């Protein structure tokens, strides 16, 4: 069973709306498969492409995929949420993980985490507006000797006081500013 491209009156408008959201190569991939047999089997491949392009699967992009590929949005969302590999939230350029293992907790990880939240203006699981930082907590990183520790991308920093955290953040912000200029 393959999906016939819709022939509704407003199809051109719908397609144009999708063009605004999705990059050309994904549109081309979807349309090129559309009239083939079992085209709906490419859904996971399309979602991989979307995530590779945007870094995550957003409401708008999933909606556009559903529209263009003529697959119900409920199904697109169902598939996206089933597989661990797909992320539904954008991730910042730098991933900050605060260790909340026992040793770090006792050494004041909570204060460190609070300072991070205050400075960045976000909670765990969120990303700053400028897209630079995502904040999350993690279970023990196995570096209890350096507690309390924070992992930025793949680098572990510790031991950190709330003041150290501010300095560390400023360093990253500065680096980004220099890169931008």
């Amino acid at each position, binding site marked *: 069973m393959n999906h016939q491209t819709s022939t509704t009156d407003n199809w051109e408008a719908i397609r144009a709306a999708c063009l605004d959201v999705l990059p050309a190569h994904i549109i081309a991939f979807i349309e090129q498969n559309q009239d083939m047999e079992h085209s709906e089997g490419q859904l*996971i491949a399309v979602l991989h492409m979307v995530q590779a392009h945007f870094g995550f699967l957003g409401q708008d992009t999933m909606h556009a995929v559903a529209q263009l590929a003529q697959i119900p949005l409920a199904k697109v969302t169902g598939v996206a949420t089933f*597989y661990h590999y797909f992320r539904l939230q954008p991730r910042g350029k730098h991933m900050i993980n605060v260790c909340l293992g026992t040793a770090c907790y*006792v*050494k004041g990880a909570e204060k460190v985490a609070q300072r991070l939240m205050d400075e960045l203006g976000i909670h765990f699981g969120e990303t700053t507006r400028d897209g630079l930082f995502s904040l999350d907590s993690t279970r023990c990183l196995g570096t209890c000797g350096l507690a309390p520790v924070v992992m930025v991308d793949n680098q572990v920093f510790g031991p950190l006081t709330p003041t150290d955290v501010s300095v560390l953040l400023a360093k990253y912000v500065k680096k980004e500013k220099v890169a931008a200029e």
Partner: protein
Amino acid sequence: MPSPVTDFFESLRDRAHSALAGGGKAGKVTIQVGSATCEHAAGSLDVLDEFTKHIQSSGSDGIVIHKTGCTGRCSKEPIVGIFIPGQAPVKYERVNRELVHEIFTKHIQKGIPLPEHALDGSLDRKDGPEKSGKTSISKHFSDMYGDVSFFTAQNRVAMRHSGVLDPESLEEYISLDGFKALATVLSKSDPEWVINEVLKARLRGRGGGGFMTGQKWKFASQNEEKTRYIICNGDEGDPGAFMDRGMLESDPFSVLEGMIIGAYAIGAGKGFWYIRAEYPLAIKRIQNAIDLCKAAGLLGKDIMGSGWDFEMEIRLGAGAFVCGEETALIRSIEGERGQPKVRPPFPTTRGLWGKPTCINNVETFANITAIINHGGEWFASVGTEESGGTKVFALAGKVKHTGLVEVPLGTPLRDVVFGIGGGVQDDRPLKAIQTGGPAGGFIPASMDTLAVDFGPLSKVGSIMGSGGMIVLSEDDCIVDISKFYLSFTQEESCGKCTPCREGTTRMLEILERITGGSAVLEDLDKLERLARLCQQTALCGLGRAAPNPILSSLKHFREEYIEHIEGKTCRAKKCVAMIHFEINAEACIGCTACVRNCPVNCIAGQRKEAHSIDQSRCVKCGQCFDFCRFNAVERK
């Protein structure tokens, strides 16, 4: 008798040989560097870069670099082989940039090898292949590694090219008898003959199920429906298993050729590779292999001039362990949530898009060309009465030599762990061997003479599985490890059927109570009843196998569970709730190492005075235990 297929094959082989002779390693010094995900992580790209720089600055055109796959000798990577014409190859272990310089300036330029850096610390070819009593079907492999006992104790069939072949070169694969098997099959033009050879070989599915491959192919080929599919299952999700990644990255063409032969046997016109998205290098190498084969007329229309058409494409997994189960995998290729379906009907009857489908594991396909080239009877003679051939294991845990090992089925576990693996780390006593990953079970040390084969392993409550083999010493807590595996299956349960969704959660809760010290003996009966229920009633293999670690540990290590519950003690000193750290004042010399490294500053004591731990503030992180060089910190 010449036929279009044999003509095609001969011209293909001639072209491959002349291409290789033109690119010429002949008469030159060859530097062989492993290139797979694990090698890269160990730093082989740096090594490659450094050698390239050295060759360039030396200005010599008599030295070439040969990129190969991975031998499976994980703990010694990156491994570098140096071939100087007329001399035996020399292999170096754990090579880094500095060592590259030394190898280049001393060994390559002055001809003085460096024995202190040689693989396994020796340059002597003391136990060559002729002495080991084992025959290798790849002369190439034994020429290269025939003097290293880690390899000579193995019997390499599926991994015969891993570590000697450039995984991105079709010509090299063809020069090592590549596509000879496909040429044989296509010129015979008798699918039934292929199925019979595989039946004779007694090849059983290497993905874990252990179903006879020939039987599976027969069922699919006898189906009335003519649209059929073949799928290669490369969704290797077991934590601690990496056999499939090894083969896909190191010898992609063998797996691909095996799959084409399988497709021919069952009459499939289309094949799919289902590979984890987490294996980017494997995906890249398989795509490269598909593209090269298409261009060479080995895939697509009129394969090798036989008039038979077969296409294949790659589909990516997306991080769901359950998709290794065949019906879930099919759902995933169809673009659905990867939830399993009730079997029967089996996929060979109604599979992908309702058509007969054969799903075989990567390793199963890797064995096919060997069966065709050497005969089903030969393959059967390698294994046991029950199942033919070899099995690749990912040997890990508390073992001296970790890595990928391939042994004939029927080999005693002992020979794998002590013979090839070199025994338990730090020479601690062996406690158990865990096979089959989260779906498998524990085999106590007292049963280490057990043969690795499908039947014997399941008899003691474990499974062969896809080939994970974890060695556990007296320092490991069986209850803790069972909990680890169950937390994995609990997280990966797809949620479709109640026994698995609820059962794994409740069992995990009980295990947490046991390791946390708040369980009562009655919990043990509950745990066992729940485990049996889940085993008998879950919908798919994941749920039915999830209780295996619990049931097998209850069978062989019940007393440890009882100790946890009644005595609130953990004999391995792993369960944090049941231990505390104390400093033995007599052994303590007052070096302050523990004081300085305690993350919560709960150790008191001045230099040259015995230290003591404030139990009320201790978080039991174990830093003091690890840092003390005088064994003064005791776990109690």
